[in-house]
């Protein structure tokens, strides 16, 4: 039974994608129903596998010498990530019923979303690095297609291509890792790497480790690869929620957490992971302070929260990082979907036109405040507990200066969250008139997520237990929920962090005093701290090289034949050499 259920987590969304695609755009109601049914079903199946999580492969199909075995391992980490992908994914699909009501080409939309969800589950469940890479690339292609879903809008197309290129750069790192692994072990099983990494030459292990780090940073939009995520905001809001909360960006953190036992001994690897996390959180937090587009602010906040997770993985707090991933996926989905409700209601994303919505959209307002509680990390929201665990782990196992910057980041998070709430809901109105306070399907998905934000921390103990029992190489320590909560409330780190968060609020209240500092920082933050310029330079250099290479493209058949035959001889020579 377990093998079938595990396979169904991937298969159900994919079957759904095929059905939706074949039905076509002519019957929108059927499409809504089918997409919801398939995604909710796969979510339920994933939840039903959760109690039976095991570190053994439940399904193994041999695909010959080179590809190795295609095996599904529903261990704690894998099932957990696929539960997030399918459950939060299905909530985004439910939200889309209202959001995409009048949209065209629904079949393409739903098919891609379902394909995306299934690929993400496959990425988390597959047991060999090669298949992880395959699913990884499928998620990259789906995200590209979904970000440029409105393909008559040049911004959307550019955003999609940017996301594709950035994640491809990372994908090369992952592929290099998989091939190196194959060259040394004769298979690319993840388990082989975790148990026998000490047999690898240190340089090779370092290459695999840093290759995976590049892949993870690109996928999770960490500096210096972060600039694709804000541009991905051109996508329809349910897709943004899907990419930011349920699928795409979690893959990077998942990859690092999965391989942590193998890579922790690489000199400099842990500090590199932590530094990337801290830097991304800092830069993204500052950019969130300067952004004037509601979705961009949330996008930057995603980058900064993923920075927290990277920091946690680097400090060895695997449980804290995955716990924060869980919290983040729920409260960020809530925030994005609430923002989606605001956007459909006002028909604008510009913060400067919003304001005064607390009274006129009371329901969405409450939902947004609950989501912000999670984001900032205030008590009784899930984000509080996971963030405190991360900071505690960082203080114990990481360099002190990184911990200090991370504390600062917690304060910045509070600052930009309260700025966002102020500009959208609490400030006086600036023109835009709300048309509704959330439509029925929107409200359902928002309420589910809000309840999740306020309660999922109760599951922390069981979640730790799950990771501890099914991940033999990771040495996760399980504690009961109540012990954990007690520990958090008695730790001095918690109170320091809460103090910093309150300080963040205080700075917002006393913001006229900081006006001059803001004036200095704002131009840097709005220009993305120069990373965009570097991107442009790379693009220009590539184009110039391409123009130089054009000379070789004569278009003459004879020359093309020479090229083909020369290539053939080169391959033959290499084969003879290798003999």
């Amino acid at each position: 039974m377990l093998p079938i259920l595990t396979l169904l987590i991937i298969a159900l969304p994919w079957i759904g994608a095929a059905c939706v695609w074949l039905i076509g755009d002519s019957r929108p109601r059927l499409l809504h129903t089918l997409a919801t049914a398939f995604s909710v079903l796969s979510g339920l199946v994933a939840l039903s596998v959760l109690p039976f999580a095991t570190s053994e492969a439940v399904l193994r199909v041999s695909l010959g010498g080179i590809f190795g075995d295609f095996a599904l391992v529903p261990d704690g980490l894998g099932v957990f990530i696929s539960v997030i992908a399918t459950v939060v994914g299905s909530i985004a699909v439910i939200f889309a019923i209202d959001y995409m009501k009048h949209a065209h080409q629904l079949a393409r939309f739903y098919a891609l979303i379902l394909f995306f969800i299934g690929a993400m589950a496959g990425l988390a469940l597959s047991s060999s690095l090669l298949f992880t890479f395959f699913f990884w690339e499928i998620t990259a292609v789906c995200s590209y297609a979904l970000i440029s879903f409105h393909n008559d809008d040049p911004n959307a197309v550019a955003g999609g291509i940017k996301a594709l290129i950035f994640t491809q750069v990372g994908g090369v790192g992952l592929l290099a890792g998989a091939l190196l692994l194959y060259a040394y072990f004769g298979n690319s099983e993840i388990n082989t790497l975790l148990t026998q990494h000490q047999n690898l030459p240190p340089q090779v292990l370092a290459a695999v480790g840093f290759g995976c780090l590049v892949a993870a940073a690109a996928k999770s939009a960490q500096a210096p690869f972060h600039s694709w995520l804000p541009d991905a905001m051109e996508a329809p809001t349910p897709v943004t929620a899907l990419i930011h909360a349920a699928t795409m960006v979690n893959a990077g953190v998942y990859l690092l957490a999965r391989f942590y036992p193998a890579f922790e001994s690489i000199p400099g690897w842990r500090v590199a992971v932590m530094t990337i996390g801290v830097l991304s959180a800092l830069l993204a937090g500052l950019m969130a302070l300067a952004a004037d587009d509601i979705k961009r602010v949330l996008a930057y906040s995603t980058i900064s929260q993923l920075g927290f997770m990277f920091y946690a993985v680097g400090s060895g707090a695997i449980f804290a990082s995955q716990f924060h991933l869980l919290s983040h996926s729920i409260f960020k989905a809530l925030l994005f979907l609430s923002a989606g409700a605001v956007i459909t209601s006002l028909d604008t994303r510009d913060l400067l036109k919003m304001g005064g919505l607390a009274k006129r959209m009371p329901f969405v307002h409450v939902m947004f405040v609950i989501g912000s509680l999670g984001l900032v990390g205030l008590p009784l929201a899930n984000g509080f507990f996971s963030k405190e665990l991360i900071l505690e782990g960082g203080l114990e196992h990481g360099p002190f200066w990184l911990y200090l910057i991370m504390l600062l980041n917690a304060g910045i998070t509070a600052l930009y969250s309260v700025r966002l709430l102020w500009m959208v809901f609490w400030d006086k109105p600036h023109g835009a008139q709300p048309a509704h306070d959330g439509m029925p399907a929107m409200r359902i998905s928002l309420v589910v997520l809000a309840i999740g934000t306020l309660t999922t921390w109760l599951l922390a103990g069981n979640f730790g237990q799950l990771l501890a029992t099914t991940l033999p190489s990771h040495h996760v320590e399980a504690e009961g929920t109540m012990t954990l909560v007690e520990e958090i409330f008695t730790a001095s780190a918690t109170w320091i962090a809460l103090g910093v968060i309150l300080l963040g609020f205080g700075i917002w209240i006393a913001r006229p005093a900081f006006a001059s500092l803001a004036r200095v920082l704002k131009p840097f933050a709005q220009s993305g701290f120069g990373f965009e310029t570097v991107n442009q330079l790379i693009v220009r250099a590539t184009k110039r090289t391409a123009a130089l290479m054009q000379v070789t493209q004569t278009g003459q058949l004879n020359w093309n034949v020479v090229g083909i035959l020369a290539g053939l001889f080169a391959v033959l020579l290499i084969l003879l050499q290798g003999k």
Partner: protein
Amino acid sequence: MSLSLFNIALVGLIGLLGIGFYGLMASRNLIRIIVALQIMVKGALLGLIAAGQVNGQVNLGQSMALTVIVADTIVAVMGMALGVQIRARLGTLDVRALSRLRG
């Protein structure tokens, strides 16, 4: 190097490949290019049969050769059909006129 049957086949093979290769590079006429391609494939055929003879798997070599003949015929027919189309559209069979792939 004795003058065994295999060596004769080997020399013929290299000769055919060389002639075909030269034809592919040097001719401008599409029909000539297709003919050159055919010559190269015939060289490969000879190689297949000779290789089958040498390692004792005569049947395998010959059946592979038959498969190649079938595939090769399709290539030739497709090439000729393209030639007819190109002649109809461009009024010439000179491949220098076909430079749309230029970068």
